[in-house]
């Protein structure tokens, strides 16, 4: 990627949005960054490029690219399966990546994993 993962605008947006949503920055943010970095390597894209791929500008504003969102949803599911640990740990890894997309305005839902 050539620069630190924390330096990407979408990562900074994610960090700020998490702090606003929950009233504090997550204590394990470094761990989340590591996971996002692994996901970026898995997807072969940097964080800003992934978010940019999921949106497009039209005259009336921003639109979500459904196909790109679906592609990343599937990639997250694949990543989750290969993340290691038990089912709960794997789901948590997938959800950290979903959280990155969600807080950058890309609507995404996880399946139910109990």
């Amino acid at each position, binding site marked *: 990627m050539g620069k630190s993962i924390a330096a990407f605008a979408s990562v900074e947006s994610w960090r700020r949005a998490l702090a606003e949503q929950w009233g504090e920055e997550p204590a394990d943010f470094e761990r989340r960054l590591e996971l996002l970095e692994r996901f970026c390597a898995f997807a072969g894209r940097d964080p800003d490029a992934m978010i940019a791929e999921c949106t497009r500008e039209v005259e009336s504003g921003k639109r979500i690219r459904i196909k790109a969102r679906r592609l990343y949803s599937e990639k997250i599911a694949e990543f989750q399966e290969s993340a290691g640990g038990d089912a709960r740990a794997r789901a948590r890894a997938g*959800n950290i990546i979903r959280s990155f997309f969600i807080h950058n305005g890309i*609507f995404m*839902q996880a399946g139910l994993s109990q």
Partner: protein
Amino acid sequence: MEFKEVVGRRRSIRFFDPDKPVEREKIQTILETARLASCAVNAHWLRAIVVQRDELPKEKLKQLKTPVAALTLDLAPVHIYFFCDLGTVNRIKGSRLKEQVDVGAMAPTHGWSHKFVDEFVYPQLLEPMTKNREGYLAVAMPDCGGAAHMALLAAFDEGLGACLNTPNPALTTKVFGVPQDWVSLWVMLVGYPSESWEAGGQRPRPPFEELYFEGEYGRPFRRDPAVVERLKAAKMIQDPAPLSGRREEIRRLAEQYGLPE
């Protein structure tokens, strides 16, 4: 529960206990309530298909999921799909309107008679209305909405949680094989809430005076604070969201169900 409290407790529930089934009699009560809703020309356009999530083949459940309602469809044990049956007016041809005359709900005091329905209302108003789909929907849909919202209140009166979502109309009509003149409306997700019944508090609403007017447009209906206090005492107007502890509650639910934060 008193009516005002039912209104006050209703809010869109999005966290359901996926493993707690809903008693059949409670589902019937919800449907019985919808059936008693007010409806123009007594047509009753609303139809419902009740689905037990766990009895629906997995492939069909997957088909019905939309990007915004995938999770709630997984969580809610009961899904009630609402449709508008546009064929009803031309099947009943004013007969249910005449029933209203027969039982004295609509009387000659207000100009009603069988002859008026047979010679004027059906052939000159209702039947032509069905030929203009846009105009017809504008008549039928509000009544379906009213009935569905009565059903929604009934769910809360039964101690359940519920939420209306808009499904993909092409998929619902295909999955359930409904007649061509049924229009897909909403899916009401029903179950026992796994969030607290307050669900973070009563949701924000626009100011009263911005919505309602008196006599003419631009003259807000004066909101009497004494009435507001009475409604608070009756638990219709409740503490507004966000209640303290809501963030923690969402975090707990996210942890419980393995959801993103």
